C-alpha cells in the first residue's frame, strides 16, 4: 500500500530515542466513521509490542491501549512500551497514531470527537486486542480513550488518565492558552501554517526535552500539509453547548460517573491548560481513582516523570484482590463519638453558660469570648448558613483564619457538615502555601482579608467567604460572595428541624474530614488526609496521654493542638500574638491569657517558648501568679533543648513540661517530660543503658500507639523488613496507631511508599530505641550520610558540635557519591560569621574533634551566617539544600549563600 503522504525514508522508527523499531507497524482499517464515505479504508500507524512479545514466547497479561493528544503522537508512550516488554510482567502496549496525526494517514477530512472515538473502535476491532484492556490517555486523547472505554465495557479492566479533561467546570472559562489558539486570527496560522502550537507544547516539559526527543516529537509534523490534523483538533474543542462535538463530550463526561473499573490519574500540576481544577472534576466523576500529582511536573507528565513504574505497579495491584489497604489496628468498627461530642454535652449541661473559647486583646483583656452554649449555637447556625451557601458533605473548605473564636466556630461547623477542611498555614511560605492550596482545590475559601487578597492575586481556587462583612467595593475586588457573619445570621433563621442541624447529625466516621499540610522542610509540602475517626482518635490520644479532660483550661499558643480544645471539653484561650509567627508570643501575653481563664495547660511551640523566655521580665506579679497555676506545658513541632525547658520550668514552677514528638501524619507519636529528658541524658552520659544517646530522646509511645524501626541498610536506605524495637538498632521509625493519617492527598505513590509495611506508617525519620524502651531520633532518612564503611545519621554529631561554646545550630551533611560520601559539618557561629565559607582551621579542628567524640569523622567544616530553616518551626534545617551548597563550595566553587 502506498499513500500519497508517505513521509519517506525517515519512517519507520529511524533512530527515535527510546523506540524499538520493531514496535512500529501500520495497518489498513475499514472506516465506519461518519466523516468517511462507506467503504473507505484508512492507514494507521502505531507502536505495538504484541508481535515482539509473542515472538519471545511471552503471553501478555492484557493490553494497554494508549491514546495521545494534540499535537503529540504515539512516541509519547515509549516508556510504557519498554516497560510492557519486560519479560517479568509482559503487557501488550498498543500506542496509536490518531488519523491525521503522527505517522497515520492524512485523510483530508475534518474528524470530530465522535468520529475519533469511533475510529479507535474500528482500529481495535481490526487489531484484536489481548484482553483485558486498560485504556491510557493524555490531553484530548484522554477523552477519546474514555469514549472508547465506555463503548467497550466487556474488554475494559481499567483506565489511566494523564493531564486531560472531560468537562469545562461550570463558572469557569476555557484556559486562556486554548482560547488564544482558537481565536480566528490565530488559529490557522498558530496550529497549521506554522509549527507554533507544536513548539509551545514541547516547551511545556520540565525539565526541557532533549534535542533528539524534541525532534522525534516534531518528526511527523514537518510541513504545513502534515499539520491539518493539529489545527482541526484544536477547532474541535467544544467551547460551549452549541459546538457540534459538545454532545459527544458530555456523553463521555456523564458516562464516566457510572464507570466502576479501577482508575489511575497521574498528573503534572504545572500545566497552563489542564490545571488542577480539571483533575478535581475527574476525581468527582471517578471518586475511587488513585491519584498522584507529581509536584513540579507539567502538561507532558509522561516526559517529565517516570510514569511507567507507577502504571505497572498499579496494574500489578489490579491483579490482586483489593490491593494492599492499610490495616488499622485496634479500631472498633463503629460507635465512634464525633469529635465535638464533649462540646455538645457541656453546652447542654449546667456549665453551659461558662466560657468555652476566648481571644485576648493586646491590652491584656479578653477581647471576645463565647460560652459553651453560644459556641454550640454559633456552630449550629453557621453550619446551617454554610449549607445554604452550598457547602455539603465532601466539599473542600480552605480555612485561612488565624486561631481564635472565628476559626473554632468555622472549623467545627464544617466538620459537622461533613465538609473537608483544608488547613494550609502561612508557615509554608508564600510559594508553598500557594502550591498547597492549588493542589487541594478547595471548593470554598474562608479567609481573613489578607488571605483573600492573596487568593485574588495568586488565583487560588474556591468560592470566597470573608470572616467579617466587607464593604461592597472591597467585596467585589476580592471576589467575595458572602461572610461568616452573614452566613451565621442567615443560618440562625433556618428551621432547626433541617437534617443538617443539631447534635444528632454525625458524618460517617470513615469520611474525609481534614487535609493538613506537612511543613515542607523535606520537599514540597504534602497534604495529609484525616477521616473523622482519625481526628476522634487524635483527641483520645491527647486526652489519655496528657490527662486533659473536660474542665481543663488551656492557653492555645500552638495551632494544631489548640483546635482540639472544644473537642476535649477544655476551655481555650488564644493569647494576643501573631499566630502565624510563633516567635511573637511574649511572656506577658502568655501570662495575661493564663490569668484570664486560670489556665491549667499551655500549648506553645519551641520558637514561642524562646521568645517567652526572652521577654520574661515583662510579666507582672499577677501574671506570674497565673503562670504558677499552670500544671502542664506541651511544646511540639520541633525538638526542645533541655536547657530551654529548664529555663521554662522556672517560669512555670508547678508545671509538668512535655515535648511530644510527632509529625503532621501522626500527632503525637511519643512523649517525654523534662525530668525524663534529664534522666535520658544522664543515662547517655553514664553509658549504663544500652542504646541511650546518639540522638534526641523523644520518650515512649503515646496512648494507643505502637512504634518500631526497620533497620538501615549499608546504602542508607530502609528496605522493607520485619520491624524491630531492639535497643541500639538504627532504622526508619514506624508508627501504628488509630490516629495515624488516612492517606496523602492526591499522592498515591507517596502513600504507597509510606504504607509499604501493612499496618504501619513509615515516618521518614530515623532513630533507635534504648534498653529502657525510649526512642532516640537521629534525623531524616533522606539526610542519612553514607561514608565509606559507615552510615552516619546527623543528629548525634550535631548535638555534640552544638555543645561547643561558639557554635549555634549545626548540621551534618554528606557530599559526593552515595557509599563514599565525605561528611561535612555546617555550623552557625556565635557571633555569626561575616560570610559563608570554610571555617577557620582552629574552629574546624574543634568541630572535628567534637564530632569524632560522637563517632563521626568529619572531612570539612563550613560556616554559614544563618542555617536555612523551615518557615513554620524555624528549627528544621534544610540539610538537602545545605548538602547541595556544600558540594558546590567544596568542589572549588565560590561560596555564595546556601
Amino acid at each position, binding site marked *: 500500500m502506498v499513500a500519497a503522504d508517505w513521509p519517506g525514508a525517515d519512517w519507520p522508527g529511524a533512530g527515535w530515542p527510546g523506540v524499538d523499531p520493531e514496535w512500529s507497524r501500520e495497518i489498513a482499517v475499514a472506516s465506519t466513521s461518519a466523516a468517511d464515505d462507506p467503504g473507505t479504508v484508512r492507514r494507521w500507524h502505531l507502536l505495538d509490542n504484541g508481535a515482539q512479545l509473542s515472538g519471545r514466547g511471552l503471553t501478555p497479561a492484557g493490553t494497554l491501549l494508549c491514546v495521545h493528544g494534540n499535537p503529540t503522537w504515539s512516541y509519547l508512550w515509549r516508556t510504557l512500551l519498554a516497560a510492557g516488554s519486560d519479560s517479568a510482567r509482559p503487557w501488550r502496549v498498543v500506542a496509536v497514531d490518531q488519523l491525521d496525526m503522527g505517522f497515520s494517514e492524512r485523510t483530508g477530512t475534518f474528524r470530530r470527537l465522535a468520529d475519533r472515538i469511533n475510529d479507535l473502535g474500528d482500529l481495535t476491532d481490526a487489531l484484536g486486542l489481548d484482553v483485558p484492556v486498560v485504556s491510557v490517555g493524555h490531553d484530548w486523547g484522554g477523552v477519546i480513550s474514555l469514549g472508547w472505554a465506555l463503548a467497550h465495557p466487556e474488554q475494559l479492566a481499567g483506565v489511566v488518565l494523564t493531564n486531560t479533561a472531560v468537562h469545562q467546570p461550570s463558572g469557569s472559562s476555557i484556559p486562556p492558552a486554548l482560547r488564544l489558539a482558537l481565536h480566528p486570527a490565530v488559529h490557522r496560522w498558530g496550529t497549521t501554517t506554522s509549527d507554533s502550537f507544536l513548539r509551545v507544547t514541547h516547551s511545556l516539559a520540565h525539565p526541557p526535552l532533549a534535542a533528539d526527543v524534541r525532534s522525534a516529537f516534531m518528526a511527523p509534523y514537518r510541513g504545513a500539509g502534515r499539520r491539518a490534523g493539529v489545527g482541526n483538533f484544536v477547532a474541535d474543542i467544544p467551547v460551549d453547548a452549541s459546538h457540534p462535538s459538545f454532545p459527544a463530550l458530555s456523553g463521555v463526561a456523564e458516562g464516566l460517573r457510572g464507570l466502576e473499573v479501577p482508575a489511575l490519574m497521574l498528573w503534572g500540576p504545572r500545566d497552563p491548560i489542564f490545571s488542577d481544577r480539571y483533575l478535581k472534576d475527574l476525581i468527582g466523576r471517578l471518586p475511587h481513582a488513585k491519584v498522584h500529582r507529581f509536584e513540579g511536573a507539567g502538561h507532558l507528565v509522561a516526559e517529565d516523570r517516570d510514569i511507567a513504574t507507577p502504571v505497572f505497579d498499579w496494574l500489578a495491584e489490579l491483579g490482586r484482590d483489593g490491593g494492599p489497604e492499610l490495616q488499622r489496628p485496634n479500631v472498633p468498627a463503629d460507635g465512634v463519638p464525633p469529635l465535638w461530642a464533649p462540646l455538645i454535652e457541656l453546652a447542654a449541661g449546667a456549665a453551659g453558660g461558662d466560657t468555652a473559647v476566648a481571644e485576648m486583646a493586646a491590652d491584656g483583656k479578653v477581647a471576645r469570648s463565647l460560652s459553651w452554649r453560644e459556641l454550640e449555637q454559633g456552630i449550629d447556625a453557621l453550619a446551617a448558613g454554610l449549607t445554604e451557601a452550598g457547602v455539603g458533605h465532601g466539599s473542600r473548605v480552605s480555612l485561612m483564619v488565624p486561631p481564635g473564636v472565628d476559626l473554632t466556630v468555622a472549623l467545627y461547623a464544617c466538620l459537622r457538615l461533613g465538609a473537608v477542611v483544608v488547613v494550609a498555614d502561612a508557615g509554608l511560605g508564600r510559594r508553598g502555601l500557594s502550591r498547597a492550596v492549588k493542589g487541594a482545590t478547595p471548593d470554598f475559601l474562608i479567609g481573613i482579608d489578607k488571605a483573600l487578597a492573596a487568593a485574588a492575586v495568586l488565583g487560588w481556587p474556591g468560592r470566597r467567604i470573608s470572616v467579617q462583612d466587607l464593604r461592597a467595593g472591597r467585596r467585589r475586588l476580592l471576589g467575595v460572595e458572602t461572610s461568616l457573619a452573614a452566613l451565621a445570621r442567615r443560618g440562625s433563621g433556618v428551621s432547626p428541624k433541617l437534617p443538617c442541624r443539631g447534635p444528632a447529625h454525625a458524618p460517617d466516621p470513615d469520611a474525609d474530614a481534614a487535609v493538613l499540610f506537612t511543613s515542607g522542610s523535606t520537599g514540597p509540602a504534602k497534604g495529609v488526609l484525616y477521616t473523622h475517626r482519625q481526628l476522634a482518635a487524635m483527641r483520645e490520644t491527647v486526652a489519655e496521654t496528657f490527662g486533659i479532660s473536660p474542665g481543663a483550661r488551656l492557653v492555645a499558643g500552638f495551632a494544631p493542638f489548640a483546635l482540639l480544645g472544644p473537642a476535649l471539653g477544655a476551655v481555650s484561650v488564644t493569647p494576643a500574638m501573631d499566630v502565624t509567627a510563633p516567635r511573637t508570643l511574649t511572656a506577658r501575653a502568655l501570662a495575661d491569657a493564663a490569668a484570664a481563664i486560670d489556665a491549667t495547660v499551655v500549648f506553645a511551640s519551641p520558637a514561642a517558648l524562646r521568645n517567652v523566655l526572652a521577654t520574661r521580665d515583662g510579666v507582672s506579679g499577677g501574671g506570674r501568679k497565673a503562670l504558677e497555676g499552670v500544671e502542664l506545658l506541651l511544646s511540639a513541632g520541633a525538638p526542645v533543648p533541655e536547657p530551654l525547658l529548664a529555663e521554662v520550668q522556672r517560669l512555670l514552677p508547678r508545671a509538668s513540661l512535655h515535648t511530644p514528638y510527632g509529625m503532621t501524619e501522626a500527632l503525637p507519636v511519643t512523649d517525654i517530660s523534662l525530668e525524663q529528658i534529664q534522666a535520658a541524658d544522664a543515662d547517655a552520659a553514664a553509658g549504663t543503658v544500652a542504646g541511650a544517646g546518639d540522638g534526641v530522646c523523644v520518650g515512649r509511645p503515646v496512648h494507643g500507639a505502637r512504634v518500631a524501626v526497620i533497620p538501615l541498610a549499608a546504602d542508607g536506605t530502609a528496605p522493607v523488613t520485619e520491624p524491630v524495637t531492639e535497643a541500639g538498632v538504627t532504622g526508619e521509625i514506624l508508627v501504628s496507631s488509630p490516629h495515624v493519617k488516612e492517606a496523602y492527598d492526591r499522592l498515591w505513590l507517596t502513600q504507597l511508599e509510606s504504607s509499604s509495611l501493612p499496618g504501619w506508617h513509615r515516618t521518614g525519620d530515623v532513630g533507635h530505641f534504648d534498653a529502657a524502651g525510649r526512642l532516640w531520633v537521629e534525623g531524616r532518612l533522606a539526610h542519612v550520610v553514607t561514608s*565509606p*564503611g559507615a552510615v552516619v545519621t546527623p543528629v548525634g554529631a550535631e548535638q555534640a558540635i552544638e555543645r561547643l561554646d561558639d557554635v549555634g545550630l549545626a548540621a551534618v551533611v554528606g*557530599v*559526593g*557519591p552515595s*557509599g*563514599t*560520601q*565525605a561528611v561535612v559539618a555546617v555550623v552557625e557561629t556565635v557571633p555569626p560569621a561575616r560570610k559563608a*565559607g*570554610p571555617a577557620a*582551621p582552629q574552629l*574546624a579542628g574543634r568541630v572535628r574533634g567534637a564530632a569524632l567524640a560522637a563517632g563521626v*569523622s568529619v*572531612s*570539612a*567544616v*563550613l560556616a554559614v551566617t544563618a542555617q536555612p530553616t523551615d518557615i513554620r518551626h524555624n528549627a528544621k534545617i534544610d540539610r538537602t539544600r545545605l548538602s547541595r551548597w556544600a*558540594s558546590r*563550595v*567544596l*568542589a*572549588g*566553587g*565560590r*561560596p555564595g549563600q546556601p
Partner: protein
Amino acid sequence: MRVLVTGASGLLGREVTRLLVRQGHEVATFQRRPSGVDGAADFCGSVTDDDAVHRAVAGAEAVIHLAAKVSFTGRAAEFDEVNVEGTRRLLRAAREAGVRDVVFVSSPSVANSGAAIAGLGAEPADPERAHGDYSRTKAEAELLALAEDAPEFRVAAVRPHIVWGPGDTQLVERVLARAGRGRLPLLDAGAALIDTTYVDNAASAIVAALHRMENIHGRALVVSNGEPRPVGELLAGICAAGGVPAPSWSVPGGVARAAGAVVEKLWTWAGRKDEPPMTRFLAEQLSTAHWFDQRETQELLNWTPAVSLDEGLARLTEHYSS
C-alpha cells in the same frame, strides 16, 4: 623477592625501598644519584640510557617504577623522553630480563581534565585531556605500561594522590617557602576538598600492590589517605608544622588559573629553570576538589593507610622542630 626500585632517591622511592628492605627483600635501586638507603644496592644511571637500564633489571623478579620527570615547567620533549620513552625502555628491558611483575607508579592527574573530582575511582588515563606535560606523559606511560600486562608479565598502575611527608620538596617545602614569604594565596577561600597521601601510606600501598598482583594486574588504582580536607586547612596544617604563618589572603580560583596559564608559558618561553610562582596546574590543584573513592583500592590491596592525616602532620611538626 629480588626487587628493582627506580627513582629511589625521591621522597616516595626512598620510603618504598626502605620498606622493602625491612620486609627482607633483596632490593636494588636505579636512578641518577645514590638512593642513600641502607641495605639496598644502587645502580646509578638514567632511564634514558638503554645499557644502564638493562644492567639494572638483570636478575630482578619485580620492578617498581617511580623514576619520572616531575615538574610544573620544562620542555615537552624532556617529559616525553624521560616519562614515556624511559618507561617504554624499562618495560622492554624488564620483559627481556624475565621480570614477572611491574608496578608502575602513576598519578591521579593522568585522568584529570581540570574538573572537580569528588569521590570517583580511577578513571581511565587520558593523555589528550590531561593538563600539563607531566600529566600528559604520565598518562601515555601508564597506558603503554598497562597494555603490556600479560599473565607472565604482570603490570599494575598505582596512583598515589599528592604524596607528602617530612623531607618532601615537592609540596611541603614549596608551601613553607612561599607561605614564609607571604606569597601563598588561598584560592576561593581554600574551600576545595582535597585528599592527600602521607608518604608512608603511599609506600605501603605500593608494596601491597606488589604482593597483590594476582588481583590487580592490568588495572590502575588511586591511593590516598581517604581523608579529604579543605585545601586551606591542609595548607594551614603544613604551615603550622613548619612554623610559618598560614596563608590568609584569598584570590578567586578563576583568576589564578588564568594567571597560571600565562605565567607558565612565559617561564617556558624564557627558558627559566626555577619554578614559576603560579602555574595553571597548581592553580587547578589548589582550587578544585580532588578526592577519591578508596573502597575498591583498600579491598583489592587488602591495605589501609596506617598514618592518619593528623598523625602525619604531627610527624611533620616533629621533623621541623628537631
